[in-house]
Every structure is written in C-alpha cells, then in structure tokens.
C-alpha cells in the first residue's frame, strides 16, 4: 500500500467486507477463504496508477474514491431484446449475463453441451473438487485479476474432453441493464480444453446504462496438446463504462489459439491478453481493431510469452481514432533463452481521422534466444488524400469515400474469419461506428 505508483484501494477492501455475505457461494467456506486470499493479494499493491509502466496510457484515477454497489437485477428484459444482442444464424448454446449475474431465464444450453458448459456458481455447488482445482493458482496474476476473483458474481466454465470438438460456436452475452443499481459487474470464466478438443466462443459486451459502470470480465484458459480455441469479442459498452477484460492463456504442444476483438464502446476499455506458449509448435493469433472518438479510449495490452522452442505467434491490431479519441497498443513479446526457432510477429497500424485524436503504440521485444524470427511494425498515419480524391472523382461523397477507406483499413483484421455471420457482425459494427462520425 505504501507504493506511490498505486492508488489507495482501501475503499475496495471495505466494499468487499460489506458485500461478502451476499456474493454467490457466500455460504461455501473454502470459496470464502479463496476470495479473502485474492483480496489480500490485490491489496498488496492495489489499483495501478499511470506511473506503472503497463498502465501509462490508461489512468484508473477515476476509481480512486468511487463507492461501489452490487446487487442482482430483478428486472425483466424482453427475450426479443436478448435476441437482438445475439448473432443471427448461429444455433449453439447461449449464456446470458445480466449485470454480472448469469441469467437462468435467458441462458439456453444445448443438451449436448450440458456436461461441458456450466455457470461458475453451479460448478462450485455441484462439483466443488473441480472448482477448487480451477481456483487453485493465481499467485502470478495481476492485482486487478485477483480483485475480480475476490468479488466475482458469476462466470462460465467450459471444460472440453479429449478430442471433442464443438459443432457450433457458443455465444456469451454480457449485458448491463438500464435498471440496475450495481455499478461494478464482475465475471470470471474458465476454459479448459483437453487434448485434441476444440471450441469457438463469441462474446458480446453491451450496456445501456448511462451511469458509470466498472466491468471486469476475466478469463483463465488452458489448451492441452493439439487443442484449439477461437474467441470472438465485441465490445460496445455505453459511454460511461470502464471495461476491462484480462485473459491468461496457457498453450501446450501444437495447440492453436485465435483471438479477435473489436472495441468500439466504453469510456475506457482495457483488453489484456497474456498467452504463454508452454508446449512446442503452439500457434497463437491475436487480431483486433479499436475505434474511438468523443473522449473514449482503448488500450490493448498483450504479453506473449514464448517459453519453449518452435512456437509461432502473430498479432495484428488496427486503430481508428476520430475526434477526441485515444488509443494505446502495447505489445510485449518475451522469448525465453530456450525458445529457439520462435517466430513472433506483431503489427499495429493506426489511422488518425482528426488532429485531436491520439494513438500510442509501443512494441516491446524481450528476446533472450538467438535463433528467432521476430518482426514488429507500428505506424500512425492519416487518411491517404490521393485515395480520397480518387474515390471522390468517381462520385463517392466525402463521407462515403472516407468510410470505404477506413473500412478497408479495419477489415484487414477480420477478413479471414471463417464464421460468416461473425465476420458480418464485425463489419456492421464498424460501419455503424463510422456512420456516426462527421
């Protein structure tokens, strides 16, 4: 607590004490102890301030003296509304969180998925041993990850058996309602895919509430040998939301992890992806776009750890910053001494549409092996005026010409998505965002 680089976080300790009894699983002794331990670990440092290197572009000062309230929402939402948050044409299981709590009403888990997909609280109740194992080891996770573990109100657990491949993508909807009094929504998810197994997950974050909201949605992922996982995220939170998503991924031999994200909403969004390649020939692809204007800021922080030889990783991020928008991409690549023949690539390009916008890009390569291929590129540029005139000379008005160019710039990230309705959703959201500009 004495560390001046962190904000005083005692108010979160009192918040924890106040809501502890009402948290899901509050009557389960081991879980309570687990939560307390996590809280302690969080308090060892607290909320990182802008002087902490990883947080230099995102100031969490707004959390300093906020008071927090958490309650389960009772209001009913229309099924038809939930449908509008879903991706049309997909038939798989759907898990719906409303204000941080899993909604039994709207969640629909397909018969064939029942044994693999469950709510975190159900798992704690029905299979405490498995739950304990999942909650086992988070000593090395960040302070905020521990905070979320202490305060989580729900989450999903996906446990896939050997060689089982899900036929349909699972949709996860994180919705913040208008009616809720909660201003802190915290979910924690676990995904474990056994060797040869595979899954696809689509996560959609939407909020309607115009008041301040702090959302944390963290995920712990383990991919065994030959396993594969694709995650597609859409973040379109309301303009007062602080959105944080932190994901740890342990990747074993020949496993394959792909992550696509689009950030267009929230006041501040922070996406942290921390894959560790612990098995040979693992492959990781991170792709994302962030679009910001009007005081909104997005911060993508990746930490790729190549611990063993012959792994490949590729990161492609595109930022579009309009009037009053801000972004940061920090891509840290660590290649351990033994991780020879690693191939790690990283590219971040940013397009500034207005002089008041700001884009930060900070690649950081920590390479201790000598026989590796690591490439990185970061650019910040403006729209190509010659291309703009070319399009206008063919009849497109300024706005349409600009939209076409920006869409081309962004869509590079989503071009090779195989699930067509998902690719369409990315494009539609990006187009809508552009449409709202000047």
């Amino acid at each position, binding site marked *: 607590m004495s560390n001046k680089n962190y904000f005083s976080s005692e108010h979160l300790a009192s918040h924890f004490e106040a809501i502890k009894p009402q948290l899901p699983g509050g009557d389960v002794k081991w879980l309570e102890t687990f939560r307390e331990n996590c809280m302690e670990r969080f308090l060892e440092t607290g909320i990182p301030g802008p002087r902490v290197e990883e947080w230099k572009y995102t100031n969490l000062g707004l959390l300093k003296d906020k008071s927090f309230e958490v309650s389960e929402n009772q209001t009913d939402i229309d099924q038809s509304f939930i449908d509008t948050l879903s991706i049309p044409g997909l038939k798989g299981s759907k898990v719906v969180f409303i204000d941080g709590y899993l909604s039994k009403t709207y969640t629909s888990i397909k018969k064939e998925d029942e044994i693999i997909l469950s709510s975190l609280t159900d798992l704690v109740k029905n299979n405490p041993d498995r739950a304990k194992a999942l909650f086992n080891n988070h000593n090395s996770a960040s302070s905020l990850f521990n905070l979320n573990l202490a305060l989580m109100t729900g989450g999903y657990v996906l446990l896939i058996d050997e060689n089982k491949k899900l036929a349909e993508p699972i949709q996860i909807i994180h919705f913040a309602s208008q009616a809720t009094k909660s201003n802190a929504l915290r979910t924690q998810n676990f995904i474990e895919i056994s060797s040869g197994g595979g899954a696809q997950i689509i996560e959609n974050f939407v909020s309607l509430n115009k008041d301040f909201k702090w959302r944390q949605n963290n995920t712990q992922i383990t991919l065994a040998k030959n396993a594969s996982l694709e995650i597609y995220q859409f973040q379109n939170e309301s303009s007062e939301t602080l959105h944080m998503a932190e994901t740890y991924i342990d990747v074993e031999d020949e496993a394959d992890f792909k992550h696509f994200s689009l950030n267009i909403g929230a006041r501040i969004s922070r996406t942290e992806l921390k894959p560790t390649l612990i098995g040979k020939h693992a492959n990781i692809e991170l792709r994302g776009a962030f679009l910001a204007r009007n005081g909104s800021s997005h911060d993508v922080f990746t930490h790729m750890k190549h611990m063993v030889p012959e792994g490949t990783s590729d990161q492609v991020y595109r930022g579009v910053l309009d009037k009053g928008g801000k972004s940061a991409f920090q891509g840290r690549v660590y290649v351990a001494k033994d991780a020879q023949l690693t191939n790690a690539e990283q590219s971040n390009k940013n397009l500034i549409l207005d002089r008041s916008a700001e884009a930060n890009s900070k690649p950081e390569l920590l390479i201790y092996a000598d026989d590796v291929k690591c490439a990185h590129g970061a650019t910040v540029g403006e729209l*190509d*005026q*010659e*291309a703009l*005139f*070319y*399009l*206008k*000379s*063919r*009849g*497109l*008005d*300024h706005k*349409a*010409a600009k939209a*076409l*160019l920006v*869409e*081309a*710039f962004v*869509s*590079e990230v989503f071009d090779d998505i195989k699930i067509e309705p998902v690719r369409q959703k990315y494009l539609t959201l990006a187009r809508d965002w552009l449409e709202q500009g000047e």
Partner: protein
Amino acid sequence: MLEIKNLHVEVDGQKILKGLNLKINAGEVHAIMGPNGAGKSTLSYAICGKEGYEITEGSIFFKGKNILELEANERAGEGIFLGFQYPVEIPGVSNMNFLKAAINSIRKYRGEDEMAAVDFLKLIRAKAAELEMDPEMLKRAVNVGFSGGEKKRNEMVQMAMLDPIFSVLDETDSGLDIDALRIVADGINKMRSPEKAILVITHYQRLLDYVVPDFVHVLSNGKIVKSGDKELAHQLEKEGYAVLGIDENAA
C-alpha cells in the same frame, strides 16, 4: 459543353495555370499536348475539383453550370470523368466494390435508384471483356500490384462503366503496349458521340492516329499557346516544341 475562361490556378502558393482559355463543344474530341510541367495535369485536376488546386481567377462552366462551386463527387455526378495520369492504389477495396459504390453514388446524385446487382454484374463483365481485362482483376484491390499498363486499362474500364458526358484522359496512352493502345483507343472511340466530349492529354501522335482529334492545343507555361487541327500534332511530332518558340526545358 465545357467553357474555361481566363483560368488561374495555384498549388501551394505557386502559380501553375496563368490565364487559360478553352472551349469544348458536344461531339468534339480535343487533344492537349505540351512539355513536361506545363500544367496539363493541373488543368485536369482543376476541372475535376481536386482539393489544394486553388482557382484564383477565371471560371469553368460545364453545360451552363458553374462547376467551381461543386465538390469533386458532384462534378462526377454531373458527368465529368478524369482518367488519371497516375491511378491511385487503394488497398483493401476491391475493384468490384469500388465500381459498385461509384455507379450507385452517381445514380444517387442524379436521383436514380441503385443499380440491381445482376445488372451491375452483367455490365461490368461486358465492359471488362470489351477492354480485354481479365475478370480476375475485378476482384483484386483497386490498382494494387497492377502494372502501369493494367492501371491505365482499369481507368478505361471505369470510364466505360460510369459512361461520363465529358472525360479528361490524362496520358492514358502512356505505359501501354501496342495492342493495349489499340484496345484503349477503341474504347475511347466508343465513347465518342454527338452528346459527349473528350479531352485527351498526350505526348504522342500514335494515340491520335487512332483517336483522331477535332482540335489540338499546345499548353505551355500555364497557357494555351497554340491551337489547330490534327495537323498541328503531326507538325509537333516532327519538329518538336521549339518551332513554337517553346524551350522544352523551361515549361
């Protein structure tokens, strides 16, 4: 159709066009020749409304309308087309989508409905075939990785698709091989009609052998210094600009 009077154009504070006059009637083909740096491309940009080309004096009327007040896209909507000397590469935008957006933007400007997808496909296939362009190129990003000649041919496909009333073709013949030149020239000739007009900017007589102009002008140092019929081009080809008292090194 097009009437340019006393046109003065500045780029980055530098005077490029210095009192240019040009009148083109419907049904006519005009050719402009002139040394490098004379201001030919500048004229084409001024007609099409490129930003940064400041008109400090003079006027351009198109079909009786003062077009200097119109944005580039509005001029396209009015029926003006520019074949670029250096066509621009647009990564990530396919030729197909680009043309669809262009056609429908122009139709929208004219208060017409969007073109049906099937009609569009039919049209584009027909035009690509006429100009002997490989249909695969329509799927590729606009001009990205195209050879110099392919880019010029792509300009012609766009012209054919958009069916303009008045076209400026800025050195469309440069970089074309002998067969391509003939194909492009045929394309230009197809666009000739009593209701339309074309201004070709070129350095070479060989294009004018195929596309025989009604008038030939010489642009030098920001002005039209001589006008004549097709014979003028022949004369220049033989004797160079020096006979007109123009120093080729000082445009």
